[in-house]
């Protein structure tokens, strides 16, 4: 269970907002998982874990695509302003995702 200040986040509303934003990400984002917790300095945070197609994860396109995904999630969810959560974004290719079978990314 994420450790956040009591009453800080309404998980159902947050989940709805994120699912709405994810629909706008486009075909490069195969899957998006997230969790709420504290970052390394104790700040309330939301950690997005985004699986990209292998094509999108190529070096030539990677920063453009991850930048666009970050902008959409940042602008649509407004994690800082609406939820008091600082956002972090981590990316993995689809082939890495299938190889690792990490529950946190499911």
């Amino acid at each position: 269970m994420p450790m956040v200040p009591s009453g800080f986040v309404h998980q159902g509303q947050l989940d709805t907002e994120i699912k709405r934003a994810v629909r706008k990400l486009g075909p490069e984002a195969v899957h998006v998982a997230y969790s709420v917790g504290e970052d390394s300095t104790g700040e309330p945070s939301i950690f997005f874990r985004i699986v990209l197609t292998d094509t999108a994860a190529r070096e030539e396109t990677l920063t453009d695509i991850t930048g666009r995904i970050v902008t959409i999630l940042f602008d649509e969810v407004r994690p800082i302003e609406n939820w008091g959560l600082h956002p972090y974004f981590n990316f993995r290719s689809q082939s890495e995702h299938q190889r690792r079978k990490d529950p946190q990314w499911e």
Partner: protein
Amino acid sequence: MAYHDDLLNQALQLVHTVPTTQASLRRAVSSAYYAVFHLLIAEATANWNNVKLRAALGRAYDHGIMKTASNRLSNTRDFPFAGEDPRVVASLRFVALTFTQLHENRNFADYNLTKDLDPTDALNQVKSSEKIFNTWPSIKSDQITQEYLVSLVVKHR
């Protein structure tokens, strides 16, 4: 070549090392963070007229204060930047958000061995820091960028 440029080059070399190892990926992410850390300090202290004292002044910068300042700038309510050039605002927010991301990932890369660091994630961190270096010249002279540089050394009260 400046120290921060060397660090970025080192990060790019490490993230492309073959065969890929956790050591090279983790050192790449760490170097990418420190490249941006020292770039921002160098840009801030460049405003100090006495060139010989800039390195000593740079010792005043603190990772935590720089992260807090960058976090605050990402808040569009506290920092709406009304009337400013939207391209400059977007670039500055990218720098601030990426700095906090690199700070967190550097912490993972250096200390957290419970999970492997993904090659894609490491590459994205390094390329994002490179993007800051490429973006910086176009925004460094703007007043809001200079205010951001000052905020990096001032503890928020």
